[in-house]
């Protein structure tokens, strides 16, 4: 038979494509649930490690229920909404205009103090990068951060998911002394000592590092209304506590008298 006759070429390619398509879709459909479960568990694992709780992927579910006390979605004014947090896809939210975006937020309780976990999403050199950053209840000091990526260069940009890159974020601040939002930058050539708003970059991974800087600034900026509300609330609470203490003190003094 002449293998190069047009009819045969058509027949062969059609058959090949059909077989391959069937094989691939079958595998994809069969394995999808398992893959999604892995991804969901990994997300929980990442949320937990942003507040310093490191667990294996298998134990992520259990610990998530234990440490994450609350999670909800904010609107662009920083008000709570009723939107289901699992329905939020950050890659789609970031493309919307600022006013229409909904921001997911997780709250964790570590040793009696609340930590606010903000999901991040941005772009690196080759593809998306994402992560979680957690703030102390002063809404300023970073408690922990994790990053991950889809396809950054191994050994260079891909290192953003390593401890040596993530750890220096702890204790950094997102507001300056005047209370203005400055975010945290990844500094090429290394951050200066005592720089509260900079961490060391990765040599050879500058574009990914810049992606992290841009992602932090863009994402945290959207939460500012919520932070401000929360800080006011904290201030009021502080004053209330102070007054209460004052009253107690007065009582004691009165009693002594």
């Amino acid at each position: 038979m002449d293998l190069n006759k047009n009819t045969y070429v058509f027949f062969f390619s059609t058959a090949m494509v059909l077989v391959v398509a069937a094989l691939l879709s079958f595998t994809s459909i069969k394995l999808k649930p398992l893959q999604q479960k892995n991804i969901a568990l990994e997300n929980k694992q990442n949320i937990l490690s942003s507040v310093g709780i490191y667990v294996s992927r298998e134990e992520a579910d259990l610990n998530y229920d234990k440490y994450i006390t609350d999670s909800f979605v904010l609107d662009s004014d920083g008000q709570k909404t009723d939107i289901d947090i699992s329905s939020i896809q950050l890659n789609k939210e970031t493309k919307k205009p600022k006013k229409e975006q909904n921001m997911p937020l997780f709250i964790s309780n570590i040793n009696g103090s609340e930590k606010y976990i903000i999901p991040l999403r941005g772009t690196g050199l080759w593809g998306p990068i994402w992560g979680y950053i957690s703030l102390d209840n002063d809404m300023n000091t970073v408690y922990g951060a994790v990053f991950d990526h889809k396809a950054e260069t191994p050994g260079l940009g891909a290192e953003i998911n390593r401890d040596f890159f993530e750890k220096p974020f702890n204790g950094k601040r997102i507001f300056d002394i005047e209370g203005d939002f400055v975010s945290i930058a990844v500094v090429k050539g290394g951050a200066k000592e005592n720089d509260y708003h900079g961490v060391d970059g990765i040599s050879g991974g500058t574009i990914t590092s810049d992606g992290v800087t841009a992602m932090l600034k863009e994402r945290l900026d959207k939460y500012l209304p919520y932070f401000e509300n929360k800080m006011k609330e904290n201030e009021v609470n502080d004053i209330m506590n102070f007054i209460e203490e004052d009253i107690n003190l007065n009582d004691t003094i009165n009693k002594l008298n």
Partner: protein
Amino acid sequence: MSQKKEALFSKKNKKLITDPLDDNNPITVQVLGICSALAITVQLKPAVVMSFSVLFVLSVANVVVSLLRKFIPSRIRIIVFLVVIATLVILVDEVLKAYIFDVSKELSVFVGLIITNCIIMGRLEAFALGNTPWKSFLDGIGNSFGYAWILIAVAFFRELLGSGTLYGYPVLEKLGIYNFGYENNGMMILPPMALVTVGLIIWVQRIRNKKLIEPK
């Protein structure tokens, strides 16, 4: 048609495995697969993972194409190769994502690189299309190992000199070399140094193996 049956590991078949390790190495002699040698030899671990993936894809693709060799129309053979390779790679990726999630994360970016790896294309065209499945399988194994050892050798030097670690383990720090004022050579982690390292390996190989030197 009374052909004498060849033993599974005849001398000729063994040569299919040993040749690509030295005399006919895919990277240093056939000069195929240089792109991936550049991209993923910054550290040992990805290099090892890549080697295993290529081993699987190349040997299976070789067998599949060899089985189909009498049916593939030569006009569209390259497209057929591409489909076979891409299918295998996607299958591997899907299975890894479902069952060995950590390895799949490690692999992520290389999956695309395997599809474009010229070694696979080159071996399908040059060998599998004209040989029996068993021979093609051996050829696949041989070439993957030939590819793997160069990759791992390059990654060894680049990780050790560039980052001071081996397989993520801080060797130089443990040895206390930094106390004498030694510093990691940042240039080693940049792509050009991979080419230079491969060049040095070719140089050493040619000093050792006179067969490779073209007559003047």
